[in-house]
């Protein structure tokens, strides 16, 4: 199968969708002639021009609110934030308007809007360019939150976002953008709420997401050589969250670890743990464990930055620790 980078995969999905559907347009800072800070729209401006590749002033609340109105009236905006931290300037538009509009109109309005951007700690991005925030968004009804890992998943999930009528937050970990992976030819879409079981195993279930998956896979492969059998699950979307796949796995293994780059309090791991305890209590052979990034703003220095995110050693230790319960 051909190999594409994560970004090339989403760009291909976007390009194909824009060719097919004239209602789709992209807004963002530098996504026009420049092709996006992360090349998310490279080559599209030449094809579709300034109305469909719409460069904006630094006016996050303004263009998010504008795109809400656009989505309500029949077009299909894609907001490219570059860094997803910037969405925080438009939280009212997102939470009070975009997320609620379909409900408040009793389903008579659609809000087909994609809000995409980079998340994640790394490269000394410092605290305003490294937020994850997806637990905040997973908390809210009315929006979908996709968190792809592989280029193939990125394209499949992006296609679902482009074709659906619901608002979607599409979060792209910056350390994954240039990672290559096989991407199927032809048209396909991956439905939201379907976890991907990356490794089958019997002794312990590990849920991991986004860039943490790369590290977790490395650890799984290392431990597999020792005969440790790990079932590794990527939820792929955290809203909706495919809890059934996790429950099925825990029924088999009895042990659950959630590896998550972002904060533990009120996080995805907490949510998964609560649901597993509620529905799979009698399957648990050990306490549910979480491994999270440190509850702190992101520091800049490489030495500090590395200390706030779980690394392979921490993941391996957490797995062994849970197996020793």
């Amino acid at each position, binding site marked *: 199968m051909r190999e594409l980078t994560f970004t090339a995969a989403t760009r291909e999905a976007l390009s194909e969708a824009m060719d097919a559907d004239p209602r789709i347009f992209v807004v963002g800072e530098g996504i026009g002639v420049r092709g996006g800070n992360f090349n998310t729209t490279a080559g599209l401006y030449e094809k579709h021009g300034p109305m469909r590749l719409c460069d904006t002033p630094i006016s996050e609340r303004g263009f998010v609110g504008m795109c809400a109105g656009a989505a309500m009236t029949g077009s299909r905006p894609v907001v490219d934030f570059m860094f997803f931290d910037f969405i925080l300037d438009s939280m009212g538009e997102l939470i009070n308007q975009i997320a609620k509009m379909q409900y408040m109109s009793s389903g008579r309005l659609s809000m087909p809007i994609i809000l995409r951007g980079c998340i994640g700690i790394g490269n000394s991005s410092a605290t305003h360019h490294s937020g994850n925030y997806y637990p905040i968004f997973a908390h809210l009804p009315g929006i979908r939150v996709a968190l792809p890992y592989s280029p193939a998943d990125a394209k499949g999930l992006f296609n679902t976002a482009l074709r659906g009528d619901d608002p979607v937050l599409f979060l792209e970990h910056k350390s994954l953008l240039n990672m290559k992976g096989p991407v199927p030819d032809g048209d396909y879409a991956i439905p939201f709420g379907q976890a991907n079981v990356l490794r*089958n195993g019997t002794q312990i279930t590990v849920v991991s997401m986004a860039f943490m998956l790369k*590290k977790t896979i*490395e*650890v799984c492969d290392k431990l597999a*050589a*020792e*005969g440790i059998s790990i079932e590794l699950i990527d939820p792929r979307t955290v809203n909706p969250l495919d809890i059934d796949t996790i429950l099925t796995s825990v029924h*088999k293994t*009895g042990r659950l670890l959630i590896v998550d780059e972002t904060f*533990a309090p009120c996080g995805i791991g907490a949510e998964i743990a609560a649901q597993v305890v509620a529905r799979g*209590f*009698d*399957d*648990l*052979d*050990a*306490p549910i*464990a*979480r*491994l*999270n990034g*440190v509850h702190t703003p992101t520091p800049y220095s*490489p*030495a500090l930055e*590395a*200390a706030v995110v*779980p*690394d*392979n*050693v*921490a*993941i*391996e*230790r*957490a797995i*062994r*620790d849970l*197996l*020793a*319960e």
Partner: protein
Amino acid sequence: MPIEIVMPRLGWTMEEGVLAEWVKKDGESVQPGDILFTVESDKALNEVEAFDAGILHIPPDAPAAGTTIPVGGLLAYLLQPGEAHPESALTPSPSHSGRGEQDDLVPSAAPSLSRQLHAPETQSERGRGGEANPTISPRARRIAAELNIAWETLTGSGRTGRIIERDIRAAATQQPAAATIRATPLAKRVADDLGVDLLHLADQIPDRRIERADVEQAARRPTPEPMVNGNRSPLTPMRRITAERMAHSAHTAAPVTLTTEVDATELVRLRKQIKADSGGRGVPSYTDLLVKLCAEALREHPALNARLDGDSIIDSDGVHIGIAVDTERGLLVPVLPDVGGKSVRQIASDSAALIEAARAGKLGADAMRGGTFTITNLGMFEIDAFTPIINLPECAILGVGRIVPKQVVVDADAEKLAIRHMMFLSLTFDHRLVDGATAARFLQRVRQFIAQPYLWLI
């Protein structure tokens, strides 16, 4: 201060030793003189005693049993009651960090991250199960209820002594009758008074409720020796793996064994011809020939070549046959990959190499993975038929008996007898995957291939 437990030097020339087994468990209380663990040095198995008293703390990243550790290498700690675990227990080697060149930039904070972040919370939530009131995981409690195991008296092997699933499973296999003793209340009381083991009695009287008279009668019989005296030696790591695999197979699969006797005269003749023609090259063994013909039969009957994975059956994309090899250290099953496309001679030379490696203890773990079917041949021990245990997750295993000349009826109508080379085949298959008729058809085909080897030579 935590007291460090290290790999001892057991002789002037010893530089490293293999941690054979922990005799004390993590969390167990230790007195001076107690045996802590055993070490396989180059000469023998040694027991290592504790010098100090304390609570044994084996960190999760401590070397596992079977690991070779240099003398002085840290294995565990003895803690005093209430003493905290050492902060970063056994600092892993930097090569584990997976961070490559950034290592020198990052101080030691990162490796102990998970401990720093979450150990405090989870520890305090847990509490310690006191001896009087053992704790049990929800899963273990559910399985205990399913298997009817009284868990209150079990000793837990989880951290802090928690009873976990494996403790229940172990109890269930050790005491299959424990839950099913049927006895009248009076019989129970009398058994208590007279010291009669109801469990033992229930084995002898499986079909009805035990009554007072049964107990009294049993009490008059001489009591059997309660304990087996003799040398006790810990399982070698290999014995332990075999024990676990076999027990797992026996408790997981739904094994059924089919036995049939086959006329192997033509197979014997075939081998003789090959031998005569070998010109000094190695001669394929009967097992090699069986590997080849089973591969052909498996291609025709892929259901026997499939494997079970959770809720699904996976068809294998090739025939990979394991052959059971007896070695000094115990049973090993190296796998001959993709035998379908190989000649008998190729199989013979591959298997010879694998068997030699197995016996020399040089077989890598990879060479024992990925099998889809296993052949075990006990003919050389003059065994006719037996019930082999399936090598999970494979579907079936073929047990091969000795080839022995017998007088057999070759034409019943003509009342004609002849001396033929006969052999028993014992096929154990997993009834979860295939039904009896399917397995029988496969065995029938194998039988045909043995009786008429030219069928698979084409």
